[in-house]
């Protein structure tokens, strides 16, 4: 059960920014979620609808931009997407890699009415 605290955090950040911009309503929220940090799925819309009730963000749509993992091999400079069963570089089999994408867990932007 981590959806609740995550949804509460999204709501609190959203309302803070909405207030700063004198919003009368929040219509959309854009989330950026990396594949390797993903602890939420679309079901948090359900939590959202309950938690946001009575706020200017009531009924806002949550949009999820999922970021696939991208790794960069430090040995041969190959950039690749790992598979489920193999994370090492498919070209040179090195495990010395850098994670370029996939750790994101952010609110990117919100859409408001003023």
């Amino acid at each position, binding site marked *: 059960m981590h959806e609740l605290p995550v949804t509460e955090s999204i709501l609190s950040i959203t309302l803070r920014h909405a207030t700063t911009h004198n919003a009368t309503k929040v219509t959309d929220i854009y989330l950026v979620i990396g594949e390797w940090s993903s602890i939420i799925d679309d079901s948090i819309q359900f939590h959202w609808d309950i938690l946001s009730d009575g706020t200017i963000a009531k009924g806002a749509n949550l949009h999820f931009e999922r970021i696939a993992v991208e790794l960069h091999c430090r040995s041969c400079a190959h950039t690749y997407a790992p598979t489920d069963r193999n*994370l090492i570089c498919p070209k040179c089999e090195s495990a*010395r890699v850098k994670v370029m994408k996939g750790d994101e867990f952010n609110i990117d932007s919100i859409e408001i009415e003023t």
Partner: protein
Amino acid sequence: MTKKVPVVEKILGANESLAEENRATLDEHKVFGINLMASPGAGKTSLIEQTLPKLAERYRVAVIDGDIATSIDADRAAEAGADIAVQVNTGGNCHLDAIMLKKGMEEIDFSEIDLLLVENVGNLVCPSNFLLGTHKSVLVASIPEGDDKPYKYPGMYRGVDALIINKIDLMPYIPFKMDYFRKGVEVLNPDLITFPLSCITQEGVDEWIDWIVEEVEKNKK
């Protein structure tokens, strides 16, 4: 009028701010904090039971145990010699977060403590996303879980500072490909310090204890 407002904030930023407050409390008293995470049954409590007697002469140790229900783990920690053991029941939450830890910490007089061991809720998914403010995060993996866990729970393996591979005494009985396991770990967390050990045979436990002592002493300086 409709407009788009850039936010670009970490979703769990508020938890991270609270985690910093916890860290400040620990630092104020020069207490070193370790967050132990693992799947249920990997051996977190057994490891604490092995660890406490070996540190008893050197340090005063507090243990905070997070669990959805019961005080079984805190009782075990107290029996094993913790100077104070606090149980935090998460009320259904699958992880400890910084606020829950703060509440547990409020029951401890840190002027009387050198080391805080936090035993997180058994879970390989959520605890990694909620920083607590401890100095180090340690993952307890175990042989019977299987060699594919780094591949299935990358977030957990990416976020830790040390890795314990528990139950190595079971290696002869379980098809665990250590090389495959370690390759996954290396991609996710290069140069991660690892401690293969067994809480039953005690093999490898001393290396883990030495690491704690080294870290506690570094923190005191």
